[in-house]
């Protein structure tokens, strides 16, 4: 099998964790492993990419990759593919990864598999459907390189002891109309919008007042990529604004994980969150309806459990 390449997202702060996860996986497939890092911070990230298995890092620190995302990286990759003909390219299932992969597919005409949870070779990968109840093994055919978008956090990153040769590349700027970034905003405080968040931490009547919502803010921040929501009871009581309301007359959310703290689970709330892939409920009432639909129900005191959970999450993140 030809080389496996990993499209490594980089920033001036270093390599995105997804890059390290994918490199770890790529090492197991046999064949040469290379990373393609395009954008400011690429060269600086090369040692870390090398440590995780890349023998070559095709790097460019050109600002244009950050200013004209997606297309520029795809066209540059196309040029590299023409030079080095890899068999397989692994990309992370992030906003950027999907844009690059989608655009690249138009250029190479090769197959692109999304949402992969495991990769066996350039010809076989695995994913889940129907809310994770069925596992699908997929055969990939067609011209190489095959493209696979991998769900973030599918493989734990494990550094090895390699070093990478850095090969500088020039950006290939495509002709034709392209979008350009003019401003960047970080919203660390508020986090993602409720409807788009990967994880939702929601509070209900059980919180007893507005102040305990700070506890949920902490948990959301610890998890990362999480938003805080609420049941109608908490909104009606005036503890949080209507924008937080999840339910029939509020927002419908479909996160990976929905954590319901102090929410009884009345139908009008459930309607807004039952699409969540996993539901965790914390309630002191063992008869609360929400425990019937939760994947994991905890009967206990949320005032003890939530802070303890926040700490545990932080602990695991730092280790």
């Amino acid at each position, binding site marked *: 099998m030809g080389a496996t390449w990993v499209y490594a997202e980089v920033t001036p702060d270093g390599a995105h964790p997804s890059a390290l996860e994918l490199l770890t996986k790529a090492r197991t497939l046999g064949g040469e492993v290379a990373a393609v890092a395009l954008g400011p911070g690429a060269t600086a990230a090369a040692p870390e990419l090398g440590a995780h298995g890349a023998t070559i890092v095709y790097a460019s620190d050109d600002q244009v990759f950050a200013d004209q995302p997606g297309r520029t990286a795809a066209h540059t990759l196309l040029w590299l593919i023409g030079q080095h003909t890899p068999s397989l390219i692994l990309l992370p299932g992030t906003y950027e990864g999907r844009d690059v992969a989608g655009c690249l597919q138009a250029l190479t005409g090769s197959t692109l598999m999304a949402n992969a949870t495991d990769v066996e070779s350039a010809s076989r990968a695995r994913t889940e459907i129907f809310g994770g109840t069925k596992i699908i093994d997929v055969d990939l055919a067609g011209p190489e390189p095959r493209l696979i978008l991998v769900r973030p956090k599918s493989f734990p990153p494990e550094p090895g002891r390699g070093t990478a040769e850095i090969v500088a590349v020039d950006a290939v700027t495509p002709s034709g109309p392209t979008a350009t970034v003019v401003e960047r905003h970080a919203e660390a405080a508020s986090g993602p919008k409720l409807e788009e968040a990967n994880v939702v931490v929601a509070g209900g009547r059980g919180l007893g007042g507005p102040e305990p919502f700070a506890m949920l803010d902490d948990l959301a921040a610890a998890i990362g990529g999480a938003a805080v929501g609420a049941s109608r009871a908490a909104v009606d*009581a005036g503890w949080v604004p209507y924008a937080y309301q999840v339910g*029939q*007359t509020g927002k*419908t959310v479909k996160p990976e994980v929905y954590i319901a703290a102090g929410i009884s689970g*009345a139908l009008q709330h459930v309607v807004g969150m039952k699409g969540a892939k996993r539901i965790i409920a914390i309630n002191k009432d063992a008869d609360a309806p929400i425990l019937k639909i939760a994947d994991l129900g905890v009967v206990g005191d949320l005032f003890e459990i939530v802070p303890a959970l926040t700490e545990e999450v932080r602990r695991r993140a730092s280790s």
Partner: protein
Amino acid sequence: MALLRAARPAARTAEVPARARRELVHVLGQRKLFQKALPGVMHACIFWGFLVLFPTIIEAMLAIVDDGRTLPVIGQAPWFLFLVDLFATLVAVGIGIAFYIRKVQRPDRFRGSHMEEADKILLAILGIVTTLLLWNATKIALGQTLHPSAEPVANALSNLFGTGQPTETLERVFVWSHVLIVLGFLAYLPKSKHLHIITAAPNVYFAKNGPSGHLEKLEIDLEGPEEDIRFGVATAKDLSKKQLLDLFSCTECGRCQEVCPAWNTGKPLSPKLLIMDIRDAVAGIDPTAGEVELQPLVPNAVTDEVVWDCVTCGACMRECPVDIEHVDTIVDLRRNLVMAESRFPTEAGTMLRGVEGPNENPWGQPATARTDWIGDIPVRVLAPGDPAPEYLFWVGCAGAFDDRAKKTTQSVARLLNAAGVDWAILGSRERCTGDPARRMGHEYLFQMLAEQNAATFAEAGITKVVATCAHCFNTLANEYPDYGATLEVLHHTELLSHLLEERKLLTTPGANGTVTYHDACYLGRHNGRFDPPRDVLGSTGLTATEMERARERSFCCGAGGARMWMEESGDARINDTRFAEAAGTGADTLAVACPYCFVMLDDAAKAAGSDMRVADVATLLEEATLGEPTAHP
């Protein structure tokens, strides 16, 4: 008047005997006016007085032309003279009471009403009867009346007058003033709310004969020509004759405003103000302006918020002495907002999509989950082609999907089994009855569901239906016949009550505790079923205590009019307000008979942190039953 002629007719001419009876009772008998004691007396005096004294106006006009002339036959009859004297006095007393109510008691229901206009009318009426009495007094003084003692008051007044010339002049003065005030009053009439003396009687005649929960069908044929499709009421020209008559029958008494749950919780909707505002918009139309673009009534006459605040509880209609149908007009306004303009509280869209979408229920739950409540209860689920049961238990969307309502469904199922009733359910073939869509104004969606469900009933050979939801009950019983489904529909409390009477269910009435029953609007006020739930509760042994606002005066839980699916504004929540009233009785349990009431009041109980238990009548009955009934004697 031109508008009235051009307006579309309302199908209100059939069933004459019922109409005539209502005319007698409501108009002649003043029944609805007596719902408030003192105002009832006040108005009865004036109204009956008006009827009795009517001939005296003729007499006065005759007497102007021909001095000394009286009415033929009765003009000098003692009984007539007595009646005239008595009722003229009663009218004056009535006016006195009216001023007492308006100036001393000053009830809040008059807020927003035109008080000066009312004062002028009352004074004019006082003027009419005063001049009449004085005229009669002068006639007595002049010796023109044959039986003065038949007119005690006029007789007493006659002592103010001598027999000579000044009295003759005064007699002319009084008769002229009397006639002039009457004529002036008649001229003023069409411009004022006193027009009700002409419009009220026909308005009562043309009111709905059946239950107030029955909205009129609006046939929507999408295949037909677009101009023929009516989307409800957008401008004044869309109002029906009855709706126009409603507007001009309103006397601004405010009895409707006083009981409106929205108004009472700080929202802008007042049924009285709504009618007045639309009336003013209609009255303001210049008939000579020709084909002018009429302003849409919403938001120009009434705001969107006012239209959406209504819970369609019908308390306003119950109070209205002249049978104005506020709810029907509000729903007609909603029909236009929803179907023509798609302008409604956004959050209700979720409910509409759920009802419209593949699963056809307001919560968008999978139709296959309608049988999840069954568990291990023996239940017959009808498959197509199965023999029909005696009773179809219509579980309803709430009863199938909502956790609290499911308890009621389960209690009813077990009770029906214990009583040996032949019953079955449709399971996932049930579709929403369409009530929430209809109350919201989406008549087309309701029509589709009604036709679909009617077809299912026909195919399955269903004749009798029992429902736990008051809304399903009202729609199936009253509205579905308009779509070809004639069913005998019972509310579960009615059936349970029968079963208890027939001793098919037996209870151990040893239950301790107190209970207060909340009358569901769509069961009670709209359909007159007040006693069956109380009878059932009576058999449980719980001690019943009534809230002040009970039976026809029940205060809505706040979910009706599709408001269950909307966010609420205002100073207080309707459900919290009602719950506080229930809790105020000191009872341990609040009994309900509708899943909407259950959810709303249970939520209110939790928000108040109260220990009061909210439970359906069926569940309370189940707790008191003996298990399997023993053999009947």
